[in-house]
């Protein structure tokens, strides 16, 4: 039975997850959560704190285990595959700009590390001289002048510059999909805008399937071709393509206040 639409890239099937099971703090997050993402989709995920957005990303990437259910990438069941192995085909950018780069290593060394993802880290020279031109070229696309500072330690760069590098590094090798975990949340509005534009550009150029968690409703509306709103471990809103492009920030805000009323806030 094939559903309408493109090729399945990622599928979460009947996910159950309970935190602190068996204690008084027991809290049930997912009860039979399902999600199917198709090739080429750019999914923006919004929702209040504790709605399960980040937990969903962590479940996909394997940072937290699930109690029940299955996770598929393509047609492959990856439920029991270890976190670091899953990253062979997943790129991820974190909220904290420090998470995506190595601060005491230089820009060139960081690029070389990212370039070697999926290959063996053996006793060959860490930086392949013939790749330097390519690194410079991709860095110049960021428009931050980093291509002229290859031997600068990444720790001395600003948060925005590091996040731009993290974005570049996570998409350097072929991946099945890109995971963006509130990756503009720690940046100032102007830099955040820039990183978002850059994200959009890279996603389109490399035709990446993308899942982006964000608290910025404007970004969620403006970017991507699918929007998901999470609430208490369920997707309460899921709009694609044409329907999604009709969505306004106000609609989402209205929905948010509706939820809050239900919660009695």
């Amino acid at each position, binding site marked *: 039975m094939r559903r309408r639409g493109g090729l399945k890239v990622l599928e979460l099937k009947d996910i159950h997850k309970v935190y602190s099971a068996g204690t008084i703090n027991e809290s049930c997050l997912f009860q039979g959560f399902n999600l199917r993402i198709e090739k080429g989709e750019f999914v923006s995920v919004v929702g209040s704190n504790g709605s399960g957005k980040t937990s969903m990303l962590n479940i996909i990437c394997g940072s937290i285990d699930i109690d029940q259910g299955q996770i598929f990438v393509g047609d492959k069941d990856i439920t029991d595959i270890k976190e670091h192995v899953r990253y062979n085909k997943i*790129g991820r950018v974190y909220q904290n700009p420090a998470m995506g780069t*190595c601060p005491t290593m230089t820009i060139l060394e960081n690029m070389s590390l990212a370039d070697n993802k999926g290959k063996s880290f053996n006793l060959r020279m860490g930086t392949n001289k013939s790749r330097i031109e390519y690194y410079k070229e991709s860095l110049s696309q960021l428009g931050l002048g980093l291509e002229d500072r290859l031997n600068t330690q990444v720790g001395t760069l600003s948060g925005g510059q590091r996040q731009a590098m993290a974005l570049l590094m996570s998409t350097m090798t072929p991946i099945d999909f890109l995971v963006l975990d509130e990756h503009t949340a720690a940046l100032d509005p102007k830099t955040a805008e820039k990183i978002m534009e850059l994200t959009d550009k890279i996603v389109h150029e490399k035709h990446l399937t993308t899942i982006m968690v964000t608290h910025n409703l404007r970004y969620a509306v403006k970017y991507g071709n699918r929007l998901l709103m999470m609430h208490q471990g369920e997707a309460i809103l899921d709009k694609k393509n044409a329907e999604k492009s009709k969505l306004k920030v106000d609609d989402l805000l209205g929905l948010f206040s509706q939820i809050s009323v239900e919660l009695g806030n």
Partner: protein
Amino acid sequence: MILLGILEQGMIYAIMALGLYITYKILDFPDLTVDGSFPLGAAVTVMLMTNVDSGMINAITLGHNPYIIMFLSCLAGGIAGLVTGIIHVKFKVRDLLSGVITMTGLYSINLHIAGKANVPIFNMETIFSNRGLDSLYPDLLDNLKVLIIISIVTIGSKILLDLYLKTKSGYLLRAVGDNTTLVVSLAKDSGSVKILGLVIANALVALSGSVMAQQQGFFEVSMGTGAMVIGLASVIIGTSLFKRVSFVKPTSAAIIGSIVYKASISLAMDMSLSMILAIVVAVVCIVYMKKELPLKVILTIISTVSVYLVVKLFIPYEMSASDMKLITSVLFMIILITGHEKKRRAKGARA
């Protein structure tokens, strides 16, 4: 003669400092295995040297070659690092405690390997004197011979380590200490990389122990007590001395730090208790006193001199060789206090 002794000992401990540079600076892992793997290197060395008659060991050592013995001691240290790494990574025991476990166990293992608590190897062939070497070496530089051979081993290890840190595997090792999350994002198991770092570090530490046993001519079961402190102090001295000098590699800094440390220990050994305590007070005053400059200088001098006089007059204590470890710990404390000062300043400057 004293200077030669300092250089020789400093260069031997420098090999260990290279190992601690990996665990402490790169991996940010407080590895206490060192106190056990340093004598382990020495124990394996004396065991292989004194048991030439046993057929099996003869076969391993290819006829009692001190260089091969040195290499095998190195391997033994690597295994010690592997054990600590597995305890920490696979069994999820805290870093400090997994080192303590291995270190404690190694004390008995070292005794078993060496046979007894004190084993002399004075008349054995060592890397410093053996038939092959003696025929090659010019008599002219006889008193520098030990230092030259130690320097070759130390600088050789340093160059190999520098080269390794430039390989893909070396990049990954540096990345693990920096940002474990990134290593996972690169689809690598950060735990195995950590274990690899501990193996290399403890192999270097055991190499240092092996060279030490050959230089001093004996194995002693407690020779590892405080080894970690010595190596750590060397690394911290070295990196703080050359913090602003970017062309000095951190590995070179660790070697120089080790020599500086040995020099300051031998300097402190000649001091009186009152003098040492006065220096401690002076350092603490300089680092921690928050007063205007002229007042700070005056108060520092007053407290330093008064401590000196009080201790000199009222505590009749003669320093002896048995106070070595006490001096070591006091010196280490001074190094950490001054190192802390620099860090605090750096943070203030950024804000």
